[in-house]
């Protein structure tokens, strides 16, 4: 803050800095800003110089536009009703009220694991996903993938026809061909038959697979999940003798040590864990006795960003640290080498803290760490008396394939020529198999390949048969959550492209009499859901009661620690880390525009996956953001741009999977770089011996970290628990103008309600579920990489990321910024046509019809939360139009838009309240961002009602408003972030 204000000449800002903040951190958003380099100043002061490019015209188009100049000048650009023929229902569906949305409980699966959701259906069209409050993995919230699932459903690039090679085929053709294979395989006991799936937890599917293996005793089932939990289960097998699923109880833990575990964004339980974690961090709930989080990680994660102490450490050195820790905690283990000074201090602090919180501490190991370290984690948790308290175990939630069920085994069999029929069900190994397996070559040796997938992707085009898969929202199925709770997935819409589900294909393979997926699921649950009432109850609530797997009390064996464990020498070579991309995962979400354009947490980049390198490495190789490098690993090469990542371990280079797709669809094709090209099956998370060479080329990345820059004002306020105890009002005690300074203009008369929002920065983990939920709810367009580079992204709620501290180990903070809904709004006074006005309930509303697009409102907005349709961003046509929320106007080119506090939801609540002749209840209106937030950081409601949860939040001593000295009187306020550092480590940089 101070560094920027001093250079920008805005000296008065120091006067507003609260003392607590002024003393400590100077927040920065990027390394350029930290260095305050000339390049950054140049960038800042000239923003984006770009023009032309569109002027590539042939003669015909030239004449067209010449004519258009006259024609368009006269057009008033008003839209007519669609010209399609419409037909009313003859018999209306039961419960359907035309024009009103209905919500159905169902299950969305990510990496095999269930998260319960409620899907909004607008006249039969699924348009929006909300969390299911009754589901253990959701508790009403969602992650970004659940939000984006509805866009995937309507993706026009989805596979739409069954293909036999390059020919379009019918369903009957496929059924006949499969039946032929079945008959052949039946004779041989399935000797050449293989099935490949991703991770699965579905009880129905598991039962089908059991029958499959029974029916075809020679056949095999393989699992391929590019970023799966193999290490986790193998670790549990070491410690307990058989694989176990692990469940964390972060709300009960006082001290949490994460060894590269990014549990807040965990695919299976991240949403739930984030809620539990935030609960243990709320100073109001815990009376200041907040939990403390230590993170050791090689590449920054959101969990590391939330840590009270974070230690960047190469992934391969984390295991060594864990040995040292285990030794200090009294576990018998060999340790080669001794800790360095910093590690020694950490060990002292950790051991003291863990010992003092026996039974209330927790050690979590990330899935990227080797199995024995997971085993050691179980041993340590047991030694600290945490088992059954902060962590417990159950039988595996996933169906595990057993020995010989990996992709490696499959490829070996394919090479040996022993596979003649391969069913690839909902996975894409031609793209995401490790490069050393040469899966595509092996696939050529298989006579009959059937691929079932949402897209005719890299694998689909190679298969003899490609069958479009029914989307999760189109078919029946079931799945288990991280704790084993089963839930049923019911379809919201008939399959758009007559797709088949995995259950249907397996039923065909099994020659099952029952082929209908609903009947298959119903049959699976016939014992628990005996009658229609029970079945309907399970569908309505979205969970099947009492199906959580029971806690298993197993003795921990430490004997495996005596066996030889890889104790890699602490060499000086670089290590390469493979991680699923934060927004497009392992590549299965590549064709999703919302996820592509969602700025990735921490890097704030969109549409790309540069290699992350540490500031140390950047200095050593003279690299800056966007420089191309050549990565060499075991004879394989990848050209990729770099991104200098604050907090990255010095010798670690991270590449994210999921990019460089060749057949993802129009959105995902050709974006980014294919990191699978470097991945080996033996080192699928981390690989040593990386060589790096600067090529001298440059690459344009589309980052948003400087967009809407507010130039170093004190937007973010952070304190420690001690500061909070000493002065609960630390966030505002430095304000020169506390409260609302006098104004020349009269206040607006109070309305029936006074809507306001409070955002708890202490709870916000920066996952950006709010951004994408807002995008889904409010018909916000995707603008593309080129437009993002020009600073034109349209997200109504952005999540700013700040750092403080040194670049090699900074503290990270996230701050969601929606419209502040100022009571004295600077935007309102400058609009010449009155298109942005104040309503009676204090909302600052934008009237799209009236907007002529002067952009003056945005110029005058000190928070830079307004978004402008510079070009025509919303394409009509395609199936994507069906996703749009009919309650929200689709904006045309040339109008300004911004956060509305989900005014359509407020209006719905108004109507409901009016019908019942009552006031709107507290928490009756949930904004889209609030509903999606895993940590409930966002609260919304009537601030005039002192009992409302938002008014209570605003009465917290931590409450402050952004740029309060401008006297804009924002309705959106923040609660300051608190950190809980260990006094023994406070003079550390973290």
């Amino acid at each position, binding site marked *: 803050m101070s560094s920027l204000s001093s250079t920008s000449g805005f000296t008065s800002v120091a006067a507003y800095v609260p003392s607590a903040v002024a003393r400590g951190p100077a927040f920065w958003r990027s390394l350029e800003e930290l260095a305050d380099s000339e390049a950054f100043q140049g960038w800042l002061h000239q923003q984006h110089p770009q023009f032309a490019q569109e002027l590539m015209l042939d003669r015909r188009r030239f004449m067209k536009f010449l004519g258009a*100049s006259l024609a368009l000048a006269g057009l008033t650009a008003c839209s007519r009703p669609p010209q399609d023929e419409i037909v009313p229902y003859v018999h209306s569906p039961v419960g359907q009220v035309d024009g009103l949305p209905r919500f159905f409980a169902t299950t969305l699966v990510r990496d095999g694991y269930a998260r319960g959701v409620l899907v909004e259906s607008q006249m039969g069209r699924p348009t929006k996903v909300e969390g299911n409050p009754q589901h253990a993995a959701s508790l009403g919230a969602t992650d970004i993938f659940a939000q984006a699932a509805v866009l995937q459903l309507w993706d026009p690039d989805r596979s739409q026809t069954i293909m036999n090679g390059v020919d379009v085929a019918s369903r009957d053709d496929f059924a006949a061909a499969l039946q032929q294979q079945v008959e052949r395989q039946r004779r041989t006991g399935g000797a050449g038959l293989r099935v490949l799936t991703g991770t699965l937890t579905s009880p129905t599917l598991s039962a089908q697979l059991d029958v499959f293996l029974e029916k075809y005793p020679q056949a095999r089932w393989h699992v391929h999940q590019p970023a799966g939990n193999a290490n986790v289960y193998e670790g549990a097998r070491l410690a307990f003798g058989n694989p176990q699923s692990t469940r964390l109880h972060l709300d009960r833990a006082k001290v949490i040590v994460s060894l590269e575990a990014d549990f807040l964004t965990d695919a299976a339980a991240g949403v739930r864990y984030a809620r539990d974690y935030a609960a243990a961090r709320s100073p109001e709930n815990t009376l200041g006795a907040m939990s403390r989080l230590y993170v050791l990680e090689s590449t920054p994660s959101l969990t590391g960003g939330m840590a009270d102490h974070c230690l960047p450490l190469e992934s391969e050195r984390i295991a060594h640290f864990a040995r040292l820790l285990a030794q200090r905690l009294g576990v018998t283990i060999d340790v080669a080498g001794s800790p360095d000074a910093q590690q020694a201090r950490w060990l002292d602090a950790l051991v003291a803290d863990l010992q003092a919180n026996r039974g209330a501490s927790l050690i979590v190991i990330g899935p990227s760490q080797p199995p024995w370290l997971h085993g050691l984690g179980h041993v340590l948790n047991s030694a600290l008396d945490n088992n059954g308290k902060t962590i417990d175990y159950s039988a595996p939630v996933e169906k595990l394939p057993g020995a010989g069920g990996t992709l490696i085994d499959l490829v070996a069999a394919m090479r040996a020529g022993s596979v003649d029929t391969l069913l690839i069900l909902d996975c894409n190994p031609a793209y995401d198999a490790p490069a050393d397996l040469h899966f595509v070559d092996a696939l050529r040796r298989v006579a009959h390949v059937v691929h079932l997938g949402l897209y005719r992707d890299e694998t689909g085009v190679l298969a003899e048969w490609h069958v479009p898969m029914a989307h999760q929202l189109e078919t029946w199925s079931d799945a288990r959550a991280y704790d084993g709770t089963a839930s049923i997935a019911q379809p919201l819409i008939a399959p758009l492209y007559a797709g088949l589900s995995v259950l249907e294909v397996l039923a065909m393979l099994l020659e099952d009499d029952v082929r209908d997926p609903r009947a298959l699921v119903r049959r699976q649950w016939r014992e628990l859901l005996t009658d229609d009432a029970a079945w309907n109850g399970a569908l309505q609530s979205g969970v099947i009661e009492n199906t959580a797997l029971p806690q298993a009390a197993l003795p921990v064996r430490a004997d495996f620690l005596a066996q030889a464990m890889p104790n890699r020498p602490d060499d000086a070579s670089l290590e390469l880390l493979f991680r699923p991309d934060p927004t497009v995962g392992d590549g299965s979400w590549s064709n999703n525009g919302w996820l592509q354009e969602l700025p990735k947490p921490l890097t704030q980049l969109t549409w790309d996956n540069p290699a992350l390198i540490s500031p140390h490495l950047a200095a050593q190789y003279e690299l800056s953001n966007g420089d191309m490098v050549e990565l060499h690993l075991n004879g394989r090469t990848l050209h990729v741009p770099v991104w200098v990542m604050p907090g990255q371990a010095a010798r670690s280079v991270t590449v994210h999977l999921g990019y460089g797709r060749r057949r993802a669809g129009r959105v995902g094709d050709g974006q980014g770089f294919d990191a699978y090209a470097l991945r080996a099956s033996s080192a699928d998370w981390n690989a040593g011996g990386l060589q790096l060479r600067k090529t001298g080329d440059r690459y344009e990345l589309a980052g948003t970290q400087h967009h809407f820059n507010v130039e170093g004002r004190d937007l973010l306020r952070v304190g420690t628990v001690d500061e909070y105890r000493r002065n609960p009002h630390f966030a505002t005690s430095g304000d020169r103008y506390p409260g609302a300074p006098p104004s020349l203009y009269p206040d607006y008369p109070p309305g029936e309600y006074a809507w306001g929002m409070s955002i708890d920065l202490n709870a916000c983990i920066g996952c950006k579920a709010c951004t994408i939920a807002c995008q889904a709810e409010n018909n916000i367009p995707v603008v593309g990489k080129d437009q993002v580079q020009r600073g034109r992204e349209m997200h109504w709620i952005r999540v700013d990321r700040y750092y403080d501290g040194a670049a090699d180990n900074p503290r990270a903070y996230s701050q969601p910024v929606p419209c502040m809904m100022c009571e004295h709004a600077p935007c309102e006074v400058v609009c*010449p046509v009155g298109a942005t006005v104040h309503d009676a309930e204090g909302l600052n509303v934008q009237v799209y019809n009236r907007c002529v697009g002067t952009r003056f409102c945005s110029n005058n907005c000190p928070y830079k939360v307004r978004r402008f349709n510079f070009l025509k961003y919303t394409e009509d046509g395609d199936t994507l139009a069906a996703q749009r929320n009919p309650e929200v106007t689709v904006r045309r080119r040339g109008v300004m838009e911004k956060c509305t506090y989900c005014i359509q939801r407020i209006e719905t609540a108004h109507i409901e309240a009016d019908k019942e002749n009552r006031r709107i209840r507290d928490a009756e209106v949930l904004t889209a961002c609030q509903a999606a937030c895993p940590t409930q950081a966002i609260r919304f409601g009537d601030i005039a009602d002192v009992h409302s949860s938002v008014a209570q939040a605003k009465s917290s001593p931590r409450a402050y408003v952004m740029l309060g000295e401008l006297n804009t009187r924002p309705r959106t306020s923040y609660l300051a972030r608190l950190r809980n550092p260990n006094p023994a480590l406070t003079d550390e940089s973290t």
Partner: protein
Amino acid sequence: MSAVFGDAASPSLLARGQTHATVTEAISAITLHRHFGWYWLAGFASALALCLLLVFGVGWLLHQGVGIWGINMPVAWAFAICNYVWWIGIGMGGTFISGALYLARKDWRNSINRYAEAMTVFAVAVSGIFPILHLGRPWFFYWLFPYPDVMNVWPQWRSSLEWDFFAILAYLTVSILYWYVGMIPDLATLRDRAPTLGLARFYGFFALGWRGEARQWRRFETRDSRCRWFFPCTAWLLWISPRLWCRGGTRRSFRHSSLPARCFPVLRWCWCSAYPCAACSGCRITSPMCIWLTWPK
């Protein structure tokens, strides 16, 4: 050309061998009996080509949207406002020259004034295009005008953009008046000398029945001089647009009046340099004309 009517111009301004009649003849011949040589046609063609480029550019803009200007969210006005300010500055240069020459009672000013005033009118007209084209939806620019609307919507008078709209309109009106009123006696001369009835009627329409009576000259002189006093008024009106930038982050906190300028370096640059630069350019365009016309031959 009003010089030919004698009273305003002193005989000393006539070159040797010239009389009022010969001067009138020579000058009106430029309009009435001009032969368009190849150089004129070439010049016209190139000007027309540039004008067509503008038409094409505007068409492309209307088809694609203001996004083609490379603007983005913090820098929302760059191209449009630079052009607007530049052309207004050119116009101010013209107004300044003609007003200053009049107030200094320079009798030889007429031809230069005509030139400067024409420049002002066209420069203001050009500058007025940009605030319209910069709109996201330019076809609705008339919503800034307080016309009786069935929806009862009305412009928002607290916005300085609204006043900017009227400032441009007022400046354009005044410039046109200024230019046109000075032309009336000359239009009458052309009417009287027109070789065809059609042209005579054309010039006659715009001459507003000017007959060169002493009474008309007296009114002409007083009106003309009053028009010149509009100069300070127009200058004041044009300060509306600086207000666009100086209007702070909020209207209530004057100390933050510098906020937008800090947020938009391009705009700050505009304000610091474009206005005076453009005004100087306006003067500079006019001054060679002055020199050429007054150079002793």
